[in-house]
């Protein structure tokens, strides 16, 4: 069967759903995201990216792929390499045997990315489905069409160093025992995600949002660094391929599918509610961008208030969702 590329919002859920569909599992991006309980919020002030704290709207890299292994009773092979030569040889051998291979790469060293999107982020995911001459044929799910990449460039991106260094990681399924999704798996994934959003620790879930709100509130309005900090929140929420509103819209799409798969029609109402909450995140992003641009005065307290409102809405939402499943 020839490979079918499908455009997706996010790299990891996009890669794994394209890969699973190739192996005969009817898997949408949103189902992959929801079934692996991918939604999250984390504010990690001690992890710095170019001097700004890590703010994540999703779970850890690779957790979407690993989260699907259980529900599908699948076995995946993950391989890392000491040298770029060994990594490329193995990739070529797998392609020659007809395998479609997932890779973790840096974004910065992929020449097909637009220049303004090339940041040093090492947990990007893509699929390689062939090789022509020196070019790898790549299905990068955040692009509308398949792309190509010369072998030297791909090798550099696979062996980039720094935080989350991929070490040439490649992966592919060895066996998939269950090709459909059970209602129990759907409910378990939703429960798990509710717990993730309502955790006992202050840096994650709705408490992480409140912690971030407290930090934003204390930013001095006149300092240019404050605008950079506020802009950074928006970038983590929108720019990096979240399908909008920091993955809230993808999860709303999942809840609609879950309503059918788990025979729980009430989940469709929850989907509707989460879409509205997502609109709240979009309005926060718009306000923040206007401040960054200087169209309205930088007002950290206003952003902090909106963050707290979002936290309150999401707390109520996930508490009720938990009792519904």
């Amino acid at each position, binding site marked *: 069967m020839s490979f079918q590329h499908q455009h997706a919002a996010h790299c990891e859920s996009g890669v794994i759903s394209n890969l699973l569909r190739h192996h005969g599992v009817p898997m949408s991006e949103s189902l992959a995201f929801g079934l692996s309980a991918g939604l999250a919020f984390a504010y990690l002030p001690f992890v710095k990216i170019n001097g700004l704290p890590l703010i994540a709207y999703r779970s850890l890299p690779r957790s979407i792929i690993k989260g699907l292994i259980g529900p599908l009773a699948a076995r995946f092979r993950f391989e890392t390499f000491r040298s770029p030569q060994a990594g490329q040889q193995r990739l070529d051998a797998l392609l020659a045997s007809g395998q479609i291979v997932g890779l973790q790469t840096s974004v910065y060293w992929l020449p097909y990315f637009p220049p303004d999107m090339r940041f*040093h982020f090492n947990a990007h995911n893509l699929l390689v489905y062939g090789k022509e001459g020196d070019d790898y044929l790549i299905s990068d799910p955040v692009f509308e069409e398949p792309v190509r990449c010369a072998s030297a460039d791909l090798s550099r991106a696979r062996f*980039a160093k720094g935080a989350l260094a991929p070490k040439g990681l490649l992966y592919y399924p060895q066996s998939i025992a269950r090709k459909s999704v059970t209602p129990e798996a759907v409910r378990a994934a939703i429960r798990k995600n509710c717990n993730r959003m309502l955790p006992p620790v202050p840096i994650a879930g709705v408490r992480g949002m409140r912690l971030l709100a407290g930090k934003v509130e204390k930013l001095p309005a006149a300092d240019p660094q404050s605008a950079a900090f506020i802009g950074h929140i928006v*970038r983590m929420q929108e720019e990096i391929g979240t*399908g*909008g509103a920091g993955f809230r819209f993808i999860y709303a799409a999942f809840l609609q599918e879950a309503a059918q798969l788990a025979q729980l029609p009430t989940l469709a109402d929850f989907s509707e509610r989460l879409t509205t909450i997502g609109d709240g995140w979009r309005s926060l992003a718009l306000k923040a*961008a206007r401040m960054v641009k200087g169209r309205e005065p930088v007002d950290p307290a206003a952003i902090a208030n909106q963050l707290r409102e979002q936290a309150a809405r999401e707390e109520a939402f996930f508490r009720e969702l938990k009792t519904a499943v």
Partner: protein
Amino acid sequence: MDLESVPQEGNATLGGHRKAMYAKDANGRMVIAPSAGWEAEEIVTSHAVEALQAQAEQARERVKAGMASPLEFWMYERRMDVALLSQTSGFWQWRVKRHLRPEGFAKLSLKQLERYADALGVAPADLQRLP
């Protein structure tokens, strides 16, 4: 978000690409819709890119004034900072800082220059001057 609210206003930082968004169609179903870009995103991305470019330009001036080595320019040009260059080159941060000064940079051996050149994706000869 409804399908007709999916932003199509364009975003220069996407370089002509469209990104996938999730939105509600007329029947209330969440579907994937390509977006040509949202101004809010364009603002914050350009803001971040410009901050990095400004760092590189300031480094260029310091190099011209003899206050910094070309390594500092190339580090920022490649969107890195001392912490990341330390990780990618394998030099301790205090050594990287030393090499950012002209006198520290002048003492680098060819082998050490090659380590930086490799980490930054620059030819060793180019690393020794401004482009």
